C-alpha cells in the first residue's frame, strides 16, 4: 500500500498537446499540464468547452500522444499502460454493441484479452452484479433505458479490474434524476472497487458531490487554473448536497470557473 501511495497513478509534467503544429490551423489544446493523481482518488476535470479536459483524458488513455512533456501512467509509458489494459473507459454515449446481449457486451474486453469462456462469464456476471443489472444479462441494449445502458458501459469498463477508470462526461446525456442516482451508484462502485477515477464533467454540482479533488481548467490554451480539494467526508449521501460546506465548495469552484472564463 505504501509503495502504491508513493507511486502516483498518473504523473503529468509539463504536458502539452498541439494539433496541426507549425501550420496555420495550429491549435494549442493543452499547455504545460502538471498533474499528479494518487491511487484511489476521485478526480473531476471541469471547465468550459474547449478547455482540453477531454484531450487530457485521451492523452492519459493513449488514444492520442502528447506533443511535449512527460506523462506516466502507473509509472509506465501511456502506450505500455494501454497495452497492459491499465484503465477502463466510459464515454458520454454508452457505445454498447447493439448486436450483443448485455452479458456479451460486458465480456467484449475479456474476449480481446483472451480470457477463457467460463471466466468471462463469471467476471461479467460479477461486474453486472456490481451495477445491479445481473437480471438483465440476456437483454439487448435497445431494450434498456439510457441510465441502464450507461451502467452496462461502466460494468464493461470494470470487468477486467483496471486500476484506473476514465470517464468522459458519462452522465451528460441523462436526465437530472437519473444522473443523481447514477452519481450515488458510482460512488458506491468506486468505494467497492478502490479504483482511481478520472471524471470529465460539465456539471459543477456533480464534480463537487463526487470528487476528492476538482481540477478546474480554462480554455485557449487549455490549462489547469486550480485544483480544489473537496474535503467533504465519504460516504457522501443525499443530504451531502444540503450541507453548508458543499455550497461553499460549489461557490468556490463556480467563481474559479468564472475567472477562468474571463481570461
Amino acid at each position, binding site marked *: 500500500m505504501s509503495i502504491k501511495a508513493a507511486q502516483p497513478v498518473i504523473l503529468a509534467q509539463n504536458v502539452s498537446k498541439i494539433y496541426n503544429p507549425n501550420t496555420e490551423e495550429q491549435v494549442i489544446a493543452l499547455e504545460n499540464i502538471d498533474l499528479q493523481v494518487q491511487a484511489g482518488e476521485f478526480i473531476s476535470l471541469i471547465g468550459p468547452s474547449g478547455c482540453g479536459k477531454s484531450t487530457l483524458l*485521451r492523452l492519459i*488513455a493513449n*488514444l492520442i500522444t502528447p506533443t511535449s512533456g512527460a506523462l506516466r501512467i502507473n509509472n509506465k509509458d501511456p502506450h505500455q499502460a*494501454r*497495452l497492459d*489494459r491499465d*484503465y*477502463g*473507459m466510459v*464515454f*458520454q*454515449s454508452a*457505445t454498447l*454493441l*447493439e*448486436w450483443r*446481449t448485455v452479458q456479451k457486451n460486458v465480456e*467484449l*474486453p475479456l*474476449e*480481446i*484479452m483472451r480470457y477463457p469462456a467460463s471466466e468471462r462469464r463469471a467476471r461479467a456476471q460479477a461486474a453486472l452484479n456490481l451495477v*445491479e*443489472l445481473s437480471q438483465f444479462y440476456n437483454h*439487448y*441494449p*435497445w*431494450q*434498456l*433505458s439510457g*441510465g*441502464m445502458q450507461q*451502467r452496462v458501459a461502466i460494468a464493461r469498463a470494470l470487468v477486467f479490474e483496471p486500476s484506473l477508470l476514465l470517464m468522459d462526461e458519462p452522465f451528460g446525456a441523462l436526465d437530472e434524476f*437519473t444522473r443523481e*442516482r447514477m452519481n*450515488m*451508484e458510482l460512488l458506491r462502485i468506486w468505494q467497492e472497487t478502490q479504483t482511481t477515477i478520472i471524471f470529465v464533467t460539465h456539471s459543477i454540482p456533480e464534480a463537487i458531490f463526487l470528487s476528492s479533488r476538482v481540477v478546474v481548467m480554462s480554455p485557449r490554451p487549455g490549462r489547469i487554473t486550480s485544483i480544489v480539494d473537496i474535503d467533504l467526508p465519504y460516504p457522501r449521501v443525499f443530504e451531502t448536497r444540503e450541507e453548508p460546506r458543499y455550497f461553499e465548495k460549489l461557490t468556490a469552484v463556480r467563481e474559479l470557473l468564472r475567472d477562468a472564463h474571463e481570461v
Partner: protein
Amino acid sequence: MTDFSYGRNAESVRSHPRLVTTRVLLPAALIVLAIAVNLALLTRITALEIDNPLLVDSTLGELAVWLAAQSEQEAPQSMLGQLARAQAVRAGAASLDTAALLTLMQRIMVGILAVSVALAAAAVVGLFANSARGRTALIGSLIVTLLPLFILPVGTGDNTLMLVMAACVLLITAYFAAPGRITRFHSFVAVLAIIFLVWEGSKAVAAALDYRVAVPATNWEYTGYPTLDDALVALEAGEIDAVIADRSAVRDLMAPFPLAAESEPESFAYPNLRYLTNINTGEAVLGIFPVTPAFPGRLAVVVTAAGGGLSDLNSLLNKRIGTPTGEFADERYLSAPREVILLDLRILNDLNLPHLQNIAEALLQPARRNGPLLLARILADAALHTWGEAVLGFGIGGLLGFLLGTLFAHFAPVERGLLPYVVASQTVPILAIAPMVVIWLGAGPQAVAVISAYLTFFPVTINTLRGLRSPHPNAIELMRSYAASRREVMWKLRFPAALPYIFTALKVSATASVVGAIIGELPSSIRSGLGRAILDFSSDYSLVSTPKLWAAILAAASIGILSFLIVGLVEYLVLRHYIRN
C-alpha cells in the same frame, strides 16, 4: 436503486366494446354480399353441362383435354402426363376419359368457391368475436376468390368474370373497413388483389371505351353482280348509280374522271363510264364521332359520264351501288363493316395485356399444340437454369464486392485511387460488356455468371465500405483502449456493424443477379435459360405468344423475388437482435 424503466413499453391495445358492433356491421354486410355472389357462381358452375364453354375453355378444362391426350401416350415425358398415364393403366383403359376429367375439374372449381365461401363465413364470425383470426380468414377468402380470375375463360359473353371481380372488390373493401391492424402480409395480398382487379378492370374499361365505328354503317346498300361487266352494264342501264370495283380492272375499260386533255373516251370498251381518279375521303361526322373513311387505294368508284359529280365518299350513301360479287369491294369493303377506331387504348388490348386467365392458360398448356411438356414446366426448367447462373454470379459478385469494400475501408489510398474506376465500371452498359465477356470466357454458364457478377458487386462494395465505417468514433476508441488488434476491430466491431448495410446491398444484388444472368444468356446463346425463352416469345409478337411472354416475365420475376426473399430471410435470422426501427 434498480432502474425499472424498461426500454420497450408493451403497447396497450384498448378496445371499445360499444363501438365494435357498429364498426363490424359494414364489413360483415360486405362479406355476406361476397358470399352471396360466390354462392351464385357456385350454383352456376355446378349446373354446367360437361360441354359448356365456361368449363371446356377454362384453364382447368383445357388442362383436362391435354391430360386425356397425354394418357394415350406410351411414355409421357412430363410428370403430370405420367400421372395421367398411370391412372389410365390402373383403370385398365386405353386413355383417360375427357368427360370424367372435365367433371373432376368442375368439382375442383366448385371446391375452390366452397372454400372461399367457408373462409368468408369464418371471417364474419371472427369479426363479431373481435378476433384477429377473422381478418386472416378474410384475406384467405380473398386469395381463394382471386383464383377463378385465372381459371374461368374470358370472352364467353356472360357476366361470370364480373361476378368474380365483384366478390373480390367486396372482400377487399370489407378488409379495409374492418377494425384492426393491417399487417404486412395482409396488405401485400390486398394490393396484389387490387393489381389483378385493376388489370382485368382496365381491360374491361378499355374494351368499352375502345370505340369502333363501322363504315359504311346503314344507308349503304349495294347489289352484287356475277361479273364486273354485269355491274357495268347495269350502271350503263341506269339500274344503279355507281359501281365500286378494282381500280386495275376498270382502268383498261374506261376513261378516268376528270378527263385528261388528250384522252379519247371512245377508244375504251365503256365510253359512257368514268372511274373517279380522285375520291374525297376527307373527314366526315357520324353521330358525334368524327370518322375518317379510309377508302382502299386499289378500289375505284365508277360512275356514268353524266353523273361524274360523285366525288365524295359520303355522297355515295343512299345511292344505289353495285359491285362484282367476290370482288375485294364486296368481300372486304362493302359487305364487311369497316371499323374506325376512335379511342385507341392499344396498351390494354389483348395483344399487349393478355387476360390473367390467358396467362394462366398459357402456363398450363404445352408450348406447342399437344406438346409433351406444359409451358410451366418448360419455364420452370429454364428458370432453374438461369437461377443457377444468377446464384453463381451473386456469389462471385457478393464476395468480390465484400473484398473490395473491406480493402477500401482499410486502405484509404486504395479507395481514393480505385473507387472512381469501380463507379465508372457501372456506367458502362452491361450489354456492351457482355459479348466481350462471352468471347473471353467462352459461351457458357461461367460467362453468364461473370456478367451477372458485374451487376452484383457494386452495391455490395459501396455498402460494405459504408458499413465498415459506420461505427461511432467512440466505439473505435473503445477497441483501441482494449489494445485490440486490427483484425479484432474488424471482426468484433466493424463487420457486425456493417452487416445491416451489407444485407441491404445483397437484397439489391439478389434481384440484379437474375437480370444480369438473363442479359448474359443472350450473347452466350444459351438455349436452356429464361433469356432465350423471353427472346423467343417476344420475337413472335402475337395473341398466341404474348401470354407466353408474360408467363416468361412472371418466371423471371419469380426467381428474382425468391432470391430477394431468401436473402431477406437470412438477414432476418442474422440481424434479428439488431436495433429495430
